[in-house]
């Protein structure tokens, strides 16, 4: 089948734009997805991630821009001539065909040889050998998902596109399939481009994440980079929880920037930002924040006093809402190493974290960006 084709190629999106009337779903997007990577396009619904995917698949035509697979321009190629396959959100399995024939579909259209061997091997990979002669509607959601995956993978495309592939599964099955997908991707070495609105799913599977918002890429990087050092308020809020402070730069002490927020002083490593004066937004993740009784010593350098508003024991951690003396709510997650000593509402506490755990965001961003986005489509 695909053996006479050259090696898997990088996917390049060049100034890609898609407009519907006067709405720009995808706005001048440029991106290179390296061959063999597991790449996630992450964003809220309506951010243009699915439109981007459909343009790569050839199902939507770009208004302008180019899509290239290695050196070849595939922008105007119809879907059936592209070495790209899609796992659809709804699976789109053919209801009139057996599982076996669904998986064989792509190979039959290409008039491939040894179809039987390949289909059997693929059914083995997704552990559906015993279901081969059933119709899709006789299978469970998770099984249908694996058929959709097998049906696309068997063609050994240069790029496999996954459109919210786990969206219809329940939480437990989704977790299991996340690891399964990761395993299969490592095994076959095909480039996976995965579209999702679930930040946890993106972080679990992808080596690189592009966070999209309003048709543009907000930030691109590894899951750790993006989570630990978000560049915009949108990214900070969209990937997990975050505490944000608006303040002003008060000066430089050694290799740290001094930031005043109300009557409190915070420190940030100079290396994390180019900003040296004026307004600033400072952020810290709740799990970096230590919560202790007031008056303790030997704490990290950044400190705020406040009182506990809410204590929630969630098993792996205890989550606190603390109110500062200027009325801002701050979250802090404490690992449950010794859960007998939970803070009580009203208790006066000190919150503290290391300067290196802070990140600095663009002061012009809207502080609520990425907060009110719907997580379920």
């Amino acid at each position, binding site marked *: 089948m695909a053996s006479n084709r050259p090696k898997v190629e990088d996917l390049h999106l060049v100034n890609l734009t898609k407009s519907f009337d006067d709405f720009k779903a995808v706005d001048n997007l440029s991106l290179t997805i390296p061959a063999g990577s597991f790449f996630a396009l992450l964003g809220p619904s309506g951010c243009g991630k699915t439109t981007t995917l459909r343009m790569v*698949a*050839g*199902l939507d035509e770009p208004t302008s821009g180019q899509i290239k697979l290695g050196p070849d321009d595939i922008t105007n190629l*119809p*879907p*059936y001539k592209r070495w*790209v*396959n*899609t796992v*659809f959100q*709804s699976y*789109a399995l*053919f*209801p*009139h065909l057996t599982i076996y024939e669904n998986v064989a*579909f*792509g190979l039959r*259209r*290409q008039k491939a040889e040894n179809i039987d061997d390949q289909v059997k091997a693929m059914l083995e990979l997704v552990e559906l050998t015993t279901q081969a002669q059933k119709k899709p509607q006789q299978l469970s959601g998770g099984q249908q998902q694996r058929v959709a995956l097998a*049906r*696309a993978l068997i*063609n050994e495309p240069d790029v496999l596109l996954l459109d919210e592939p786990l969206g219809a599964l329940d939480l437990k099955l989704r977790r299991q399939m996340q690891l399964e997908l990761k395993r299969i991707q490592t095994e076959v070495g095909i480039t996976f481009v995965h579209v999702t609105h679930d930040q946890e799913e993106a972080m679990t599977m992808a080596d690189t994440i592009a966070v999209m918002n309003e048709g543009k890429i907000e930030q691109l990087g590894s899951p750790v980079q993006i989570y630990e050092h978000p560049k915009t308020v949108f990214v900070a809020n969209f990937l997990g929880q975050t505490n944000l402070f608006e303040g002003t730069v008060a000066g430089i002490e050694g290799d740290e920037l001094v930031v005043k927020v109300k009557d409190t002083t915070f420190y940030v490593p100079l290396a994390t930002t180019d900003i040296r004066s004026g307004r600033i937004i400072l952020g810290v993740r709740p799990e970096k924040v230590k919560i202790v009784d007031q008056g303790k010593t030997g704490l990290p350098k950044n400190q705020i006093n406040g009182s506990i508003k809410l204590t929630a024991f969630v098993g792996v951690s205890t989550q606190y809402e603390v109110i500062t003396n200027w009325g801002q709510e701050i979250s802090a997650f404490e690992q449950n190493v010794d859960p007998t000593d939970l803070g009580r509402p009203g208790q006066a506490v000190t919150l503290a974290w290391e300067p290196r755990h802070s990140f600095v965001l663009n002061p012009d961003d809207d502080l609520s960006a990425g907060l009110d986005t719907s997580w379920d489509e």
Partner: protein
Amino acid sequence: MSIAQESIITKPTRRRIKRTPYLLILPGIGWLFLFFIFPLSTLFATSLQKPAGISPDDGFLPAFKVSNYSSALVEYYPQFFRGFLYSGIATVICLLLAYPIAYYMAFRARKYRNLMLVLIVAPFFASFLLRTNAWKTILSGDGIVVGFLNSFNLLPQDRILNTSLAVVAGLTYNFLPFMILPLYTSLEKIDPRLIEAAGDLYSPPSQRFWKVVWPLSIPGVISGTLLTFIPASGDYINAELLGSIKDKMIGNVIQSQFIDLRDYPTASALSFTFMAIILVMIYLYIRRAGTDDLV
């Protein structure tokens, strides 16, 4: 609530639930018996009667004259054959005309879909007879169709009316909606994403149709062809109004046997033979098309 109490309450309820469906279908069964089973048995009895005298006015006597069947078949097999031939051709043309229309309505028409549906159903507001008579005017020698075709020398017989062509055209016209509607219903149920998926899996447009759309529309094709073929093969209006004496179908024979000649046993025997042939044909057709999910 104790267990004893519970059983007292639930037992009669359950029995009532069991009985309810039967009570509910009783009126329907009664109706079918009165207006279907009973007349059909009478008709069957009539088909075996023998004449009491020379004239139909003398009446008929109960008998077991099976030769009614053989003689009717021997005499009228050309009309049987012609009936099935004309309606068969009309059904095929209907399918060829209806499929693109139904396809367009299901996948492309968007906001015009409802308008198209109304237009397809609209002719039913005029009577069947009236519409067929209108075709007489349209196809007549001084009508526009003949005039237009004649100006290009496309008509070898110089006429359309009173030819087999007119009968088939009339049947096609009259039964087209019965083909379009079931086709549309089954095409409309097809998820357009399946067509996208086929394209994604290396199918050019023609394969997308033959490997995905066509097989999924088979239930519509079957119900459409049956809804067209069965009534068309028994139709006599089109042959009567648009055809010549040489274009008579089996419907015309049965009609004239009943109404004009008043030979009730022959007419009944023809009706039963016709029904039997249709049943066998449908059985073979559905077996062949092999659909578990016709409904």
